[in-house]
């Protein structure tokens, strides 16, 4: 990663300005709502790519962690009368702690074994929340308080945009720090990293914790925006959707994964008339990307643009 690339900085600034300016261009309430949900998925996809793309740890529990954050927040408001922000914070904290524990438990597992364990963890969590309907209302879904009482669609749009942008900056700072180098050394050669003195145990668990905490925040925001959460947001189908977003955007870069999230959520609404076929197409595109363009849509695009500049400059 080149550190002082004026083109890259300009592109990111332009993107941010575009998202800030979009609602001013006469976007309907419906599309503002759609983009807000898009930011939720952007945060989830980015948090997943932080773990899978940078540390090389596969997890299928991202949707479950998002649900965990949402449920902890919603339930703590019902049972402990916490303010919404307090509930959100508790959700993030708990998702982070459970993520850390999951990271510690799965230290010795790799690849498919790790994938299976995270699926098992996600499903146990989903089954428990569905089964304990006395506490969580089960599959009927739990109604919860609004994040911004009396807030308009536009308020939520800017809040979600700001939080997503802030989290992406946090992730970027993390990746650029020494810790980010530890992450990538674990991905490239775990034993080699350990022999050079990297505390592999700590950083593997820490990566799980960070990724889960961001997912928990996304889930909490979503719960208090839609004001209804159901166990279906923790399903493997939803996880597949997050995977498709990150892979299509480019899961080796948090920004590309986030853009994939916004893009797919927008397309999902724009192509509504195609019904379930949309998801078939997204999964197909994800498979083709994995096979032929592992850097994803935005990664491939960025590489092509850099090449073009080099040729003309």
């Amino acid at each position, binding site marked *: 990663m080149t550190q002082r690339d004026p083109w890259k900085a300009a592109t990111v600034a332009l993107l941010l300005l575009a998202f800030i300016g979009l609602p001013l261009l006469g976007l309907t309430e419906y599309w503002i709502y759609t983009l807000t949900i898009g930011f939720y998925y952007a945060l989830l996809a980015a948090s997943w790519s932080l773990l*899978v793309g940078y540390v*090389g740890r*596969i997890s*299928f529990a991202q949707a479950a962690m998002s649900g965990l954050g949402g449920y902890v927040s919603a339930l703590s408001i019902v049972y402990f009368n916490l303010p919404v922000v307090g509930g959100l914070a508790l959700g993030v904290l708990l998702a982070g702690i459970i993520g850390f524990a999951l990271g510690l*438990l*799965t230290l*010795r*597992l*790799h*690849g*498919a*074994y790790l*994938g*299976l*364990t995270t*699926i*098992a*963890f996600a*499903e*146990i969590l989903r*089954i*428990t929340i*569905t*089964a*304990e309907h006395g506490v969580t209302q089960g599959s009927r879904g739990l109604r919860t308080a609004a994040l911004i009482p009396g807030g308009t669609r536009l308020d939520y749009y800017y809040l979600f945009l700001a939080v997503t942008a802030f989290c992406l900056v946090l992730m970027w700072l993390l990746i650029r720090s020494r810790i980010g180098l530890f992450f990538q050394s674990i991905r490239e050669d775990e034993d080699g990293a350990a022999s050079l003195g990297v505390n592999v145990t700590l950083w593997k668990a820490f990566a799980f914790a960070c990724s889960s905490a961001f997912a928990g925040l996304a889930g909490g925001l979503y719960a208090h925006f839609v004001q209804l959460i159901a166990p279906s947001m923790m399903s*493997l*189908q939803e996880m*597949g*959707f997050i*995977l*498709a977003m990150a*892979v299509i955007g480019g899961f080796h870069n948090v920004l590309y994964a986030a853009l994939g999230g916004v893009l797919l959520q927008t397309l999902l609404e724009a192509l509504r008339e195609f*019904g*379930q*076929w949309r*998801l*078939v197409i997204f*999964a*197909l595109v*994800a*498979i083709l990307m*994995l*096979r032929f363009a*592992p850097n994803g849509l935005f990664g491939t695009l960025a590489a092509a643009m850099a090449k073009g500049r080099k040729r003309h400059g």
Partner: protein
Amino acid sequence: MSLLAISEQAINGLIVSAIYALTALGLAIIFGVLRIVNFAHGEFYMLGGYAYYVAVTTLGVPPVLGVATAGCALMVLGGLVEWLLIRPVHQGKVDRPDEYAIMVTFALSILLLNLANSVFGPWPQRPQPLFRGRVEIGELVISGDRLAAAGMAVLLITVVLLALRFTWAGKAVRAVSQNRQAAEIYGISVARVGLIAFGVGAALAGLAGALIGPVFNVTPPMGVVPAIKAYIIVVLGGLGSIPGAIIGALILGQVESFATILIPDPSRALAYKDAYGLLVLVLILLVRPQGLFGTRERRA
């Protein structure tokens, strides 16, 4: 608990085990040869159910031939998937082959699930069963369709085990499972064995789906739970171990069957039924990642 209730639970466990074992056997063969976990296995199972439905209900094929049709259709599909998506892993055509294999099969499962949803609709279908009526042993009553499905599953498992032991292809599959390089040196085409293994593995999942489809219902998400069961079973028995897969299935069938009657509240007991196996999976992976019969692997 009365003796009758105990034997009823045990027989239900055995019937379920037979279907689980058939599904898990396919997963074990695929893992043994190709060293990948097929995360789309449940969707192969589901497609087997739909292939049977199309053959029997839409085209009017007799049920037994319908099962065979489903097996053949899934074998072709499995072969195609191996050729298009899995073979590049072993030819060094993808970077990070482990991650690629996991993510590509997971994406495939999402693709197939939504494809079935689009083509057949989300509502359940119920094709004609293999056998109607019921069987009575003393006071014990077993429904015939379940028994027929389990009987066919046991028959198919026996055929596969015999084929693995005595046919050339079966020996090749076992050889590649044990040592890829050595098998190649002895002149086995590892690529062709991979194709066969994935085709047979997919066919076994499809056959299991075709057998149980008429007993329960055929729906797009029907494969999710059995696939998770199959993962638990192969991890329990040791990934890639074929006797492990069968013994794992027997253990899981009984654990589920009896654990359900431990919680007094029936609705919650039913809801938690699928969680017991998952708990077993997590415990096994944490304590003995190589499973009961598996050999220890450094990285997989």
